[in-house]
């Protein structure tokens, strides 16, 4: 994997000896010229997509069409970024992937969402099991009331896992994966609300990781965070992507460019273009993609 250009070294979190730099976007007036990202992996040869969307459309009650005819493949071992201006359906799409869309009664969906080849909307699907395998991190860090330990083990306990040893093992592993272990290992039984914003979001990431999901969905996870916390989360995701399928809705085009291996541009509920990050951000095929990426609208 090629190093990305580093403008700033990442913060002081211990992550092992690998020093990974984060590309910070240069501040520039209107037409933003992005640094060309390193060549990201294309669809890894021979790997089956984890998630396939086929002609997916979604309409809210009242006739508001959120998604139109989306066909998209999402692959394991890389970060797929769904980006676009606000109200383009990115969050709606994400919520369909773990059927949180079920919480909007009266909305209509057509088309298919296949997870490991299986239609997740089939009647015999156990939605709870689905959500444990396709786990979501939300935009606003939302700890549940209770201790850090209770937050991390909640999903596991609801799934019937109660052995203290197993829970402890998963807690530690997920906290390490989210780069939070060192900060909280001594205070696992303190209230999760005592954590800072950045810590809370890492907690939420760890909470998802504790379930050992196949897919991690992240809806704007760093929008409320300071740059340091943002960087920490981003680097954690980079480290995790080998073992998981990660779908990320970024809060800016720059984050999209930093993080994506594969990028999908959504506009007004339509999938305009999807390709490797390198192509989408430097040589997009579609005019609208180029306009958005270069900042002509948004």
């Amino acid at each position, binding site marked *: 994997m090629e190093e990305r250009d580093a403008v700033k070294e990442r913060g002081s979190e211990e992550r092992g000896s690998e020093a990974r730099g984060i590309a910070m976007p240069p501040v520039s007036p209107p037409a933003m010229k992005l640094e060309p990202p390193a060549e990201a992996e294309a669809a890894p040869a021979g790997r089956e997509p984890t998630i396939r969307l086929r002609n997916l459309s979604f309409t809210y009650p009242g006739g508001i069409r959120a998604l139109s005819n989306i066909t998209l493949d999402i692959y394991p071992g890389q970060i797929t970024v769904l980006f676009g201006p606000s109200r383009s359906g990115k969050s709606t799409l994400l919520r369909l992937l*773990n059927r*949180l869309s079920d*919480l909007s*009664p009266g909305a209509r969906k057509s088309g298919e969402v296949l997870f490991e080849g299986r239609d997740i909307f089939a009647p015999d699907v156990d939605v*709870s*099991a689905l*959500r*444990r395998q396709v*786990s*979501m991190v*939300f935009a*606003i860090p*939302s700890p*549940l*009331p209770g201790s850090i330990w209770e937050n991390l083990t*909640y*999903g596991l306990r*609801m*799934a019937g896992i109660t052995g203290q040893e197993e829970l402890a093992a998963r807690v530690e592993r997920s906290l390490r994966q989210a780069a939070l272990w060192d900060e909280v290992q001594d205070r696992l039984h303190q*209230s999760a*609300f005592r954590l800072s914003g950045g810590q809370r979001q890492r907690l939420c990431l760890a*909470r*998802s990781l504790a*379930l050992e999901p196949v897919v991690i969905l992240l809806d704007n996870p760093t929008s409320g965070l300071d740059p340091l916390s943002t960087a920490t989360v981003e680097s954690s995701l980079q480290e995790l992507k080998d073992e998981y399928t990660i779908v990320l809705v970024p809060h800016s085009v720059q984050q999209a460019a930093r993080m994506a291996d594969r990028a999908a541009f959504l506009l007004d509920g339509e999938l305009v273009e999807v390709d490797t990050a390198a192509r989408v951000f430097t040589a997009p095929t579609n005019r609208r993609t180029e306009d958005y990426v270069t900042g002509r609208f948004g």
Partner: protein
Amino acid sequence: MTRQGTQRIATAVITIVATIATIPILAVILFIVWQGLPALSPRFLFTSPSDGMTEGGILPALLGTVYLTLGTAIASIPLAIGAAIYLAEYAGQNRVTAAVRLAIANLAGIPSIVYGLFGMAMFVLFFNLGTSILAGSLTLGLMTLPVVISTAEEAILAVPAEFRTVSLSLGASKWQTIRHQVLPHALPGILTGVILGLSRAAGETAPILFTAAAFYLPALPDSISDPTMALPYHLYVISTQVPGMPLAVQYGTAFVLLLLVLSLTLVASVIRSRVRARREW
């Protein structure tokens, strides 16, 4: 008249009227305390009446009210909480839900004497429970239902939506979410509503007139199928039906009843504010 002038007059009038509204409340309470306090003694509170009810105390009536209040709690809480959960978590925007809400609004408006009559017809006569604590509790419980449902529903809805969304997205089922993330945090609010409902039930006379209350019983009730004395009914009878009843005793009884009801209200308020203060979110 200038606009400022109108403003001032209006403000003055309104302030005066608001005062008229609230001063009598204070006056009523203080008056009862003033007149009733002298009658209070351990004998008054802890012994039974004697000598044609003119001597002795209100213990059986006090106990009876306590039993009835407990009975009301048992009769109404499970159903009320279930209905509140239904309205807050399961009901859709459809005609059934609208009908349920209409029904609850109507239950809230039914006069207490009508509840008493219904209780007599259904529990005392039809189900043959006789005039009993049981029949009285069921009747009072029914009457308390709408109040508890409303406050419980509010308490449940006050739990932030994020808790539910996060819980579900972590793989919990709907009921698990309700049980672990909604109800525990709604419980204090529900408790407040329950206590307020119970305080109202404790002070009611009409529903127990024909379902539970007896004026004079030689012994304390043994079981829930016995009738019982009760404070509100006791006050009614000694003030209107017993000639020669010392005024102090009447005021004292009123005072104890008022104290009981108002302390329940106070407890409910204290719970509400303490919980609000200690909330983490």
